[in-house]
C-alpha cells in the first residue's frame, strides 16, 4: 500500500510540472504568474501571427518528415542486414549503427558542423535532414530489429519456396508483417527530429531555424509567454502522436 502511494506521488511529481505550462499559455499577463490572474488566448494569436515561430514550425515539420523517410529506409535496411544476412563483424556493424544513441550529441554536432561547412551543407534543409537522420536511425534500427526477431521466418521461407524473389518476399510478406513497427519507428524518427536542438544549433543558420532553435533562442534572451503557447501545442501534439502509436500497437496484437 505504501509503495503504491509513494509511486503515485512520484508519478504526480513527474507529470504535473509539464502541465504547469498549459494554464500559463492562456495567461493574459506577460509574466509567468501562476495561477494566471485572468485568461486569454492572445499568446496563441501571437504564436500564429509571428512569422519567426510559424516558419520555424513548418521548417521543423518538413525536416522531421524528410528525416522520418530517410532514417526509416536506412534503419530498416540495416536491421534487415543484421537479421537476415550472415557476415563477419555483425556485432561491430550493430554497434556502429546504434552508437549515436550514446555518443554525446555535442560531439556529433561539432563533427557535422566541421564537415558540413566544407560541403556547404550548413544552413540548408538537406544538412539538417542528414544530421537528424543520424540521430534517428538508431531508433528505427532498434524498433525494426525487435519486430523482425519476433516474426515467424517460416512465412518468408514459404514464400521463397513458392518462387517469390527475396525482394518480392520483403515487400509482400515481411513488410506487411512488420508494418506497425515501421510506422512506430517512423514516428520515433519524426519526434527525434522535431525535438532536436543541439546538432541544429550548429547546422541551422539564420534562414533555416527550426522550432526548437527559435525556442532555444527565446529562452536565452527575451522569454515571453508565446513560448508557453508553443510548448503547450507541442505537448498536445506529442500526446496525440503517442495515443496514435498506442492504437497502432493494439491493432497489431488483435
Amino acid at each position, binding site marked *: 500500500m505504501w509503495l503504491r502511494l509513494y509511486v503515485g506521488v512520484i508519478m504526480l511529481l*513527474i507529470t504535473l*510540472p*509539464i502541465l504547469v505550462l498549459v494554464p500559463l499559455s492562456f495567461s493574459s499577463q506577460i509574466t*509567468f*504568474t501562476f495561477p494566471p490572474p485572468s485568461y486569454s488566448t492572445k499568446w496563441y494569436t501571437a504564436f500564429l501571427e509571428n512569422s519567426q515561430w510559424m516558419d520555424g514550425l513548418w521548417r521543423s515539420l518538413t525536416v522531421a518528415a524528410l528525416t522520418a523517410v530517410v532514417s526509416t529506409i536506412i534503419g530498416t535496411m540495416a536491421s534487415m542486414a543484421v537479421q537476415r544476412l550472415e557476415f563477419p563483424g555483425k556485432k561491430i556493424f550493430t554497434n556502429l*549503427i546504434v552508437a549515436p544513441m550514446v*555518443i554525446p550529441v555535442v560531439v556529433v554536432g561539432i*563533427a*557535422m558542423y566541421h564537415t558540413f561547412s566544407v560541403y556547404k551543407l550548413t544552413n540548408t534543409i538537406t544538412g539538417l535532414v542528414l544530421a537528424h537522420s543520424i540521430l534517428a536511425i538508431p531508433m528505427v534500427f532498434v524498433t525494426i530489429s525487435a519486430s523482425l526477431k519476433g516474426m515467424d521466418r517460416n512465412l518468408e521461407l514459404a514464400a521463397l519456396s513458392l518462387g517469390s524473389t527475396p525482394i518480392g518476399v520483403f515487400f509482400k510478406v515481411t513488410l506487411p508483417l512488420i508494418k506497425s513497427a515501421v510506422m512506430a519507428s517512423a514516428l520515433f524518427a519524426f519526434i527525434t527530429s522535431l525535438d532536436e536542438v543541439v546538432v541544429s544549433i550548429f547546422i541551422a543558420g539564420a534562414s533555416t531555424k527550426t522550432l526548437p532553435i527559435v525556442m532555444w533562442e527565446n529562452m536565452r534572451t527575451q522569454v515571453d509567454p508565446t513560448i508557453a503557447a508553443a510548448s503547450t501545442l507541442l505537448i498536445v501534439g506529442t500526446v496525440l502522436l503517442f495515443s496514435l502509436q498506442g492504437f497502432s500497437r493494439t491493432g497489431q496484437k488483435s
Partner: protein
Amino acid sequence: MSTKVNTEAPVPGMVPPLNRLVQIPGLKWLLLLIPLVYTAILLYYSMASVLKLSVYDDKGFTMQYLQQVFTEPLYLKVLWNTLKTSFIVMLVTLFISYPIAYLLVVMESERWKKVVLSLVMITLWISLLVRTFTWTVILQDQGIINKFLMSAGLISEPVKLMYNTMGVVIGMTHILIPYMVLSLYSVMEGIDRRLIQAAQGMGARPWKAFMQIFLPLSLPGVMSGSLIVFVLGIGYFVTPALLGGQGNMMISKLIQENIQMTLNWSMASAISVVLLVTTLILLGLAAWVARLSPLLKGEK
C-alpha cells in the same frame, strides 16, 4: 540465408516486376553497405576529422591541447562539475525510479501497469526543451515553488533553486527517469517471482525476502541503468545550459562555447576526446556488467 532456400527457378507470372533486378549477384549486400556507408561518411568520417584537430594544428602533431584540458583550473573545474552533477543525478534518479520499476513488476492490475508505463513513456516523448523550460518557470525566484513557500510563511525571501547545481539536478533527473525505469524494469521482469514466494513460504518476512532475494537479483539492472544515466548525463547540453549558472558549466557547453564564441577548434576537439573516451569507458563497463551478471546470461 534467404537466397539459399530459393533453389527452384522462379515461376513465371508469380514473380514481381523487380525480378530482373534480383538477378544481379550480391544485391542483398546493399542492405549492409548503404547504411554502413551512410553513417560512416556522415558520422564517423566527420568525427575522425574533427577529433584529429585535438592533436594536430598548423604546426603538426601536438599534445598541448589535451594537456591543457587536464592542467588548466577552468577545464578541471568543468570536468569535475560534470562528473559530480551526473553522479548526483544518477543517484537521485535511481532512488526515484527503483520503486516505480518494482511496482510495475509486482502490480497485478494490467490496466494500472499500462497507465504507469504510459506516463513514463509520455514524459520521455515530450520535448526536452519543453520539459526544461517548464522547470525554469517553476524554479525561478518568482516561480511556483518560491511563491508557495513564501505565502505559506516558511521562507521570507526566495530560495535559489536554479542557476545552480540544484536546478540542473532537478531538471536532469526529471528527464532521465524514464531511461532508468526502463532499464530496471527490463531486468526486474526477468526475475523469477517464485523465488520470493519460496523465501516467504519458508518464513522470511516480505522485507527480508525483498532485501535478500529481489534486490541482489535486480543489481544488474541497477548497474546498467545507472551507467546509462551517467553516460547520458555527462553529455547533456540543453538542461545544464538553461538551468545551470555561470559557475557550474558542463563539458558540452564548454565545447560549444569553444566553437561558437572563441572559434578554438583544437581546444573543443581536445575536450570532446576526453568526453568521448570517458563515455566509451563507462559503456564498456556497462557491457561488462551485463555480461558478467549470471542473471542476464541465464535469461538469454
